[in-house]
């Protein structure tokens, strides 16, 4: 080192430029390593998850959506425990069916109920959204409809997730001929007109399934509903599969995959430890965005009368029923429609927020 040092001829600054009196000898003492270390502090350790959550928390729209959605889920779980009315039966007063409680406006009581309250002094639970044409409490029907719609959305998104991820991972990782054949199958499914297939399949499947599930828990949901799940699973995974495959193709090119191979890591472990965790964020985001699209389709089918079996209801079928009374009671159409809008919007905003926070390509 001294040798190289000697090559450099020293130059000194001209004393005229500087007032040396402001310095003292102490200034020029050597700094200790510790003092130097203090100057460079490594930032707080933050994992990918922490980083993403921090970004997500800053996204006000997404956070508001999450709060609204959670509130909604809590509501549809809790409300049926509090409200003493059933979604399927006519209002009863003192054990007797109340024929006068038909088409009540919001917050009104029927004549019989008023009479009952006068007689006993007991206060009955109000009909927040009135009653429908069969004398059922409309508020509780909306709550049940939301339950059904949300679960349809979540269940079909999960099914799409499972099929799509497995299919896409295999196709993307192995590549070559496997990929070629698997992706052509996807192309074929993609080219089918999905609405037509959904309607045809749900009609056919409904007829086949209804006798099969008789007497089981599933019967309550009805063949239509099950048909709808199957249809979703059969058709909508292709988008997920394509996406996962594309992601894997790009991740496969990273040197850390090559490094794992150089180490001798077996294929299965490379997939599990390196590939899947790296596509996970994209998968979660897409799943979050899949839920509203399923809810939409379900509402659409229910609106066409292909939805859940009566007396079970969903937001779509509520809207369908409300068409008859659209002039006298427009709120019966507006309320379920509004709930659909809120759910779909919230889920979309959450999905977008997740993408902004976790998709590494955007950061």
């Amino acid at each position, binding site marked *: 080192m001294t040798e190289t040092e000697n090559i450099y001829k020293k130059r000194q600054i001209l004393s005229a430029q500087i007032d040396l009196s402001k310095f003292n000898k102490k200034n020029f003492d050597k700094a200790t390593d510790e003092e130097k270390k203090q100057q460079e502090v490594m930032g707080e350790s933050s994992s990918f998850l922490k980083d993403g959550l921090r970004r997500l928390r800053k996204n006000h729209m997404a956070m508001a959506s999450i709060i609204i959605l959670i509130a909604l889920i809590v509501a549809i779980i809790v409300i049926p425990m509090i409200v003493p009315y059933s979604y399927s039966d006519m209002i009863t007063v003192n054990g007797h069916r109340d024929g006068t409680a038909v088409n009540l406006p919001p917050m009104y009581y029927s004549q019989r109920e008023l009479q009952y309250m006068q007689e006993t002094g007991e206060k009955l639970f109000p009909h927040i959204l009135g009653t429908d044409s069969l004398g059922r409490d409309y508020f509780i029907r909306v709550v049940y409809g939301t339950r059904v719609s949300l679960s349809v959305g979540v269940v079909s998104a999960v099914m799409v997730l499972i099929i799509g991820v497995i299919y896409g991972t295999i196709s993307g990782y192995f590549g070559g001929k496997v990929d070629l054949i698997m992706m052509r199958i996807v192309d074929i499914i993609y080219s089918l007109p999905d609405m037509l297939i959904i309607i045809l399949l749900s009609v056919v499947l409904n007829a086949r399934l209804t006798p099969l599930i008789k007497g089981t828990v599933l019967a309550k949901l009805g063949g239509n509903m099950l048909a709808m799940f199957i249809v979703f699973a059969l058709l909508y995974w292709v988008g997920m599969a394509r996406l996962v495959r594309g992601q894997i193709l790009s991740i496969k090119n*990273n040197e*850390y995959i090559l490094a794992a191979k150089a180490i001798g890591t077996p294929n299965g472990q490379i997939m599990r430890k390196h590939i899947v965790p790296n596509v996970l964020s994209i998968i979660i985001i897409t799943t979050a965005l899949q839920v509203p699209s399923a809810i939409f389709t379900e509402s659409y089918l229910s609106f066409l009368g292909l939805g859940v079996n009566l007396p079970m209801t969903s937001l779509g079928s509520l809207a369908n029923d409300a068409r008859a009374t659209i002039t006298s009671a427009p709120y019966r159409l507006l309320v379920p429609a509004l709930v659909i809008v809120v759910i779909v919007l919230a889920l979309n905003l959450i999905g977008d927020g997740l993408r902004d926070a976790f998709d590494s390509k955007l950061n």
Partner: protein
Amino acid sequence: MSENEKKPLLKVEHLKQYFPVSQGFHKIPLKAVDDISFEIMPGETLGLVGESGCGKTTVGRTILRLYEPTAGRIAFEDQVLFDSGELYDEEGNQILDEKGRPKKGRRVEVNMLPYRKKMQMVFQDPYSSLDPRMTVEEIVGEPLDTHHLYKNKKERREKVLSLLETVGLNAEHAMRYAHEFSGGQRQRIGIARALAVNPSFIVCDEAVSALDVSIQAQVLNMFEDLQDKLGIAYLFIAHDLLVVQHISDRIAVMYLGHMMEIADADELMNHPIHPYTLSLLSAIPIPDPETARHSHRIILEGDVPSPLHMPTGCPFRTRCKYATEKCAMERPPLTDRGNGHKCACWNR
């Protein structure tokens, strides 16, 4: 011991690596590596230089059999890892049968798993070579898992920490994720991962190219220290001749998948023979104004030809000022010019 030292650690003979490339409806071979032979002694560093697309990275990956070689023979510590079975005579010409087809011997393909412990790799890009979803401990521990190199969790952790210490990182770093480190530190993590299995040979594929000069020197010194301490042999692949000459005992120069020249580092830097090596040397920007002002650059005309449309004969002849008719007719063989200095050129 002296007997032992003469035996090469790695012996590569007539290695070819072609990749099929679709052009229109048919596939033509891209000859990334075309008939290359070399040896690496235990504890030695062989530098491999060349411009982008010359096949140097492919050589490194093919030796580790991350790619399946098209032809040739790779032997490591007396064990043949791969042999496509082509036969060659003493002078290196392929032996043909009566019908003019290449005569074939036995094909050998060995399961690489036990050899992954002895041959490792350090990658170019310190960003993409570490899994962003893993902590440093998981990254460095992965080879330990694969080869079952520990008895219990405690031993695994101890091993990881001692590896980190070897490369100048500490326990505090173990729980962090790769993205929190600078390029130089990431490269250290990559080196720790390679060292985990205690290899005797490491392919360093442009391992310092992405680093800043001051950090590059840190990592280069570390490679040298590790070699002194552990006796590891390196195949040091880089495009920067100054870096390669600094770390290597011998240097090989590649151009378009061919080996042009191979010699001791000093010999190659001071007495280059091949016109390509000459121009490569003169093109290096010298960080010294005085020398730079007076040096005369041999500026090569034109670009490297596409490896899909390789020139006949010598691959360098299209840019070579010495090129003659013979260069277009026949590929020059790599001949010994004394002292183990080999060069493939008809005219020099």
